[in-house]
């Protein structure tokens, strides 16, 4: 085993947590992480929150320095991308011209923001994924009067919260009939977005963006399909992400639009020595459905499972419920488990600041969305992780259908 060489493609949270978990589980071979960005692994959740409004520096979001990694026996190569992989020879070719061999490969290359507007002005239109994106957006928001967010997802609403706290006039545009449609049932999503509307954000659904007005190449406005033009000096496109798996697809790995397809143990389908962690991949659930959870917490859970299975040839699976949070307008929204395949929804409180919504499928609790109320969020995580029957869940019994 000490001759094993794990190569981790990607040096963000997924890569870092996998490397650390490998060492903790007793992996004694070499570990090399190859990352496209120049920074040591850093934390992304603050990028759509305090980094936009406070004087947070790069060093404050770094998760682990290169020296600390070296101390754990983890080599980090930054500013380098894997351009080619040969899965039978088990070698990769990198953008620095080097070839690197591996015995096990972990795909942790993450995702990039989807930007459907090819003709956007050069100045004033942003996406948010990297630290550099956040620092550029911060300096633009500091001077902005009119901010338009395209996409009413969690990241869009967090950016709206930051922009509003800086005093700008903020509009959120959603092409779908309801906000947060990928994550939550409509009634629950509307309660969540009323945190934004109460704070003075203009949230418009069925609002399809068709283009921009500009002066030279600087943004002046956002054009909607119904003819409306909204004045804007900053526009942020937050309409989802695409997994960075082109390098794997060319090598014949099992890739679809959700990313690298992995079984419930984190191993790529039909590939012995390829694993996936994080936003670049979708894992099969117990129900055989592949899901990509772009959650900070899920990444740590996946990393532990993969490290265990890779090192000890075991077949562990995830045991915890998916969990994500979103900080907006002074509140913390907890999103637990699955909401979209529910056949029953119960709402204990519709008041946005105490929102408590629960989702079930075939009589078992599968998901929840609640605002603040940390102790209840923890209970719900436990009930959802163990698929508790709704008849055993007091808040479910006390809520209206």
């Amino acid at each position, binding site marked *: 085993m000490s001759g094993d060489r794990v190569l981790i493609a990607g040096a963000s949270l997924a890569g870092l947590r996998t490397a650390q978990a490998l060492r903790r589980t007793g992996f004694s071979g070499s570990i090399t992480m190859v990352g496209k960005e120049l920074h040591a692994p850093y934390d992304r959740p603050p990028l759509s929150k305090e980094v936009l409004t406070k004087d947070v520096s790069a060093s404050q979001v770094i998760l682990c320095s290169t020296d600390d990694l070296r101390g754990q026996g983890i080599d980090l190569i930054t500013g380098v991308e894997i351009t080619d992989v040969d899965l039978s020879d088990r070698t990769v070719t990198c953008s620095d011209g080097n070839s690197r061999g591996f015995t096990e490969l972990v795909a942790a290359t993450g995702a990039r923001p989807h930007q459907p507007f090819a003709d956007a002005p050069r100045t004033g239109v942003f996406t948010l994924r990297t630290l550099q994106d956040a620092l550029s957006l911060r300096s633009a928001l500091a001077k902005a009067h009119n901010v338009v967010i395209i996409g009413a997802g969690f990241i869009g609403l967090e950016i709206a919260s930051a922009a509003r706290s800086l005093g700008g006039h903020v509009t959120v545009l959603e092409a779908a009939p309801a906000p947060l449609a990928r994550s939550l049932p409509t009634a629950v999503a509307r309660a969540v977005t009323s945190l934004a509307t109460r704070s003075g954000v203009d949230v418009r659904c069925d609002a399809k963006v068709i283009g921009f007005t500009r002066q030279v190449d600087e943004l002046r406005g956002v054009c909607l399909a119904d003819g409306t033009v909204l004045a804007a000096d900053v526009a942020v496109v937050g309409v989802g992400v695409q997994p960075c798996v082109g390098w794997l697809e060319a090598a014949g790995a099992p890739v679809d639009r959700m990313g690298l397809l992995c079984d419930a143990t984190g191993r790529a389908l039909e590939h012995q020595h390829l694993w996936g962690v994080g936003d670049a991949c979708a894992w099969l659930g117990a129900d055989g459905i592949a899901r990509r959870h772009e959650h900070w917490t899920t990444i740590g859970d996946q990393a532990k499972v993969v490290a265990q299975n890779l090192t000890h040839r075991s077949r562990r699976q995830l045991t915890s419920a998916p969990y994500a949070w979103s900080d907006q307008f002074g509140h913390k929204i907890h999103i637990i488990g699955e909401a979209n395949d529910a056949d029953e929804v119960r709402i204990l409180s519709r008041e946005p600041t105490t929102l408590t919504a629960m989702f079930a499928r075939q009589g078992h609790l599968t998901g929840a969305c609640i605002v603040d109320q940390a*102790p209840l969020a923890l209970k719900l995580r436990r009930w959802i992780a163990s698929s508790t029957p709704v008849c055993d869940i007091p808040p479910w019994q006390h809520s209206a259908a």
Partner: protein
Amino acid sequence: MSRVVADMTKCQGYANCVVTAPDHFDLGEDGKVRVLSQALADDQLTVVREAIDACPVAALRLEAP
């Protein structure tokens, strides 16, 4: 023995530590972490380190003996 210490000014009640290491952490009614056993034997360090890493706001830290 190493000790695990919580910074209550940073804790926001995510409870990832409780989910990761339920023998070592709990959540109070105030929604903040409770450290159940500060002093740690060597064989408890791995799970506690996992719990420390699972905190989104780095509210937990390990102090060497």
